[in-house]
């Protein structure tokens, strides 16, 4: 058995490294944009519109003369912000609900799970659209809308994994030692549930980026002059035959970020889980 585990870890290593590299690139781009971009992302320069990539504009300029490269870098900021906060909301509320469900059991567990099922019944993206359309477009509302959908995902995952942990003998040992349910939840359940949560978080991060792009594309997310990959894609529609690169670059940015996060998640799953089960 341990032989198979060892091999899996080797394969997982490649995903982990590539994923980590791509995610580092994403974070690096966002961080860089805080201090420097080749041009101001919202600097309109109509005389220089639709320029091909050159020394002056590395990735070209869009229909309003704005530098594409600068917008990509600044757009990374929005993507990361959305990912972090949406996943953050999901983790904080979802894990709490999941732990509560697993520890309290009975009616409480049923109620929480039904609430999650209820939320799942609504198609996520449509509901996000509804929410932003009702409360007004903007990055903040987009984040909240996406974040709400992460809560039942993490709640269900936490509860299922927590149930598995609660059945283990060391939890019984903790009870025999006089620890109460709260102490057990924090000291024993949470650390053992964490690997599954970390992996899911990377996946949800990628989903958040995609969702934000979709919302921005529809005009409901980041508003101009704020740079966002989704908005860039929306603007690029009109120029598809003249300058398809205006859609390719932001599209690539989204694709690489999502790929990186998914690979990171895969790699982490392989790296974290077997160690827990690694025995003799």
């Amino acid at each position, binding site marked *: 058995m341990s032989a198979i585990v060892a091999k899996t870890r080797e394969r997982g290593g490649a995903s982990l490294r590539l994923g980590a590299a791509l995610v580092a690139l994403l974070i690096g781009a966002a961080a860089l944009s805080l201090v420097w971009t080749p041009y101001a992302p919202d600097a309109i320069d109509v005389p220089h519109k639709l320029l091909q990539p050159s020394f002056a504009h590395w990735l070209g300029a869009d229909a309003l003369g704005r530098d594409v490269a600068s917008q990509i870098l600044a757009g990374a900021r929005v993507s990361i912000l959305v990912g972090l906060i949406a996943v953050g909301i999901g983790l904080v509320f979802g894990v709490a609900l999941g732990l509560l469900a697993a520890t309290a059991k009975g009616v409480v567990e049923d109620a929480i799970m039904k609430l999650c099922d209820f939320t799942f019944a609504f198609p996520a993206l449509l509901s996000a659209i509804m929410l932003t359309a009702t409360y007004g477009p903007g990055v903040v509302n987009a984040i909240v809308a996406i974040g709400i959908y992460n809560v039942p995902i993490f709640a269900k995952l936490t509860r299922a994994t927590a149930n598995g942990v609660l059945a*283990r003998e060391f939890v019984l040992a903790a009870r025999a030692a*006089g620890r109460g349910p709260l102490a057990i939840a924090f000291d024993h359940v949470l650390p053992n549930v964490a690997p599954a949560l970390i992996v899911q978080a990377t996946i949800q991060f990628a989903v958040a980026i995609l969702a934000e792009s979709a919302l921005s594309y529809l005009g409901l997310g980041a508003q101009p002059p704020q740079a966002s990959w989704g908005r860039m894609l929306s603007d690029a529609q009109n120029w598809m035959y003249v300058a398809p690169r205006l859609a390719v670059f932001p599209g690539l940015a989204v694709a690489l970020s999502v790929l990186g996060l998914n690979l990171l998640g895969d790699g982490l799953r392989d790296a974290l889980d077997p160690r827990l089960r690694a025995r003799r």
Partner: protein
Amino acid sequence: MSAPLLEVVDLVKLYTLARPGWFAPHPTRRAVDGVGFVIAAGRSFGVVGESGSGKSTLARAIMALDRPTSGAVRLEGRSLYDLPRKELRAMRAHIQMIFQDPYGSLDPRQRIARIVAEPLSNLAHVARAERSARVEEALRAVGLGAADALKYPHEFSGGQRQRIAIARALITRPKLVVADEPVSALDVSVQAQVLNLMSDLQREAGVTYLVISHDLAVVGHICDEIAVMFRGGFVETGPSATLLTRPAHPYTRELVDAAPKLEEAPVSRPEAPPRPDAATGCAYAARCLFAQARCLGEAPALRVLGEARRVACHFPIGG
């Protein structure tokens, strides 16, 4: 005459099962059916039984991990189930447990020091500084070193992990240690090490054990008195040596015969004629080689058979 260390009185644990149909009543399973016994300080007690005997359920009820349906468990005269929550927590310092699975009973994400010190959180009067001293003391008592406190469980072998579990059980200096299959998951050579450790602790630290096991030899090695459990009830109790060499109940005899031994030639057992499991009468009658009409109709009570022995049988072996 001092109060016994542990007193179990008429313990019953029922489980309700899924009902076969919407209008049928819920069937119940009597996992523990009116068990009572007494453990005196210094005299270790063993409960032997196979799967389905209810011994693990009994252990959990005694440890106050699973509330029984009825009955009482008294530790040094105080009834555990009548205590308010805070006091029950404090009592846990006096009764600790060693679990069967050395790979599951230690949290893989915690260091040994934290694992072994966990029961101490119950005792408000143990200061931080004293905690690490106690951890070291406990680890040394089981043959491990202070350096081991910083490691993680996966760095140890099965036998060593069981020692860590014993260290954890001993850290509050409990009066009674309940050991649920303490050596079943270990290799033979390691079993001997752990059994030796347990005997040593008995002698040197005055620990009293309640050992739950399916293995007669293990129980016989540590315990002064043994109870044999079958389908939720005790069928025989008595001093170890006598019970193992001159069993009075046919089931005890079956267990003793079935245990593979090197020294003797195998005892070939004829199959008991198939008999339906009766709702009344002796629970063992369906398998018993000596069952008679009375056994099918009337369940025998656990009665005294002389020299601290009790048997639940209408026709015990040897009179």
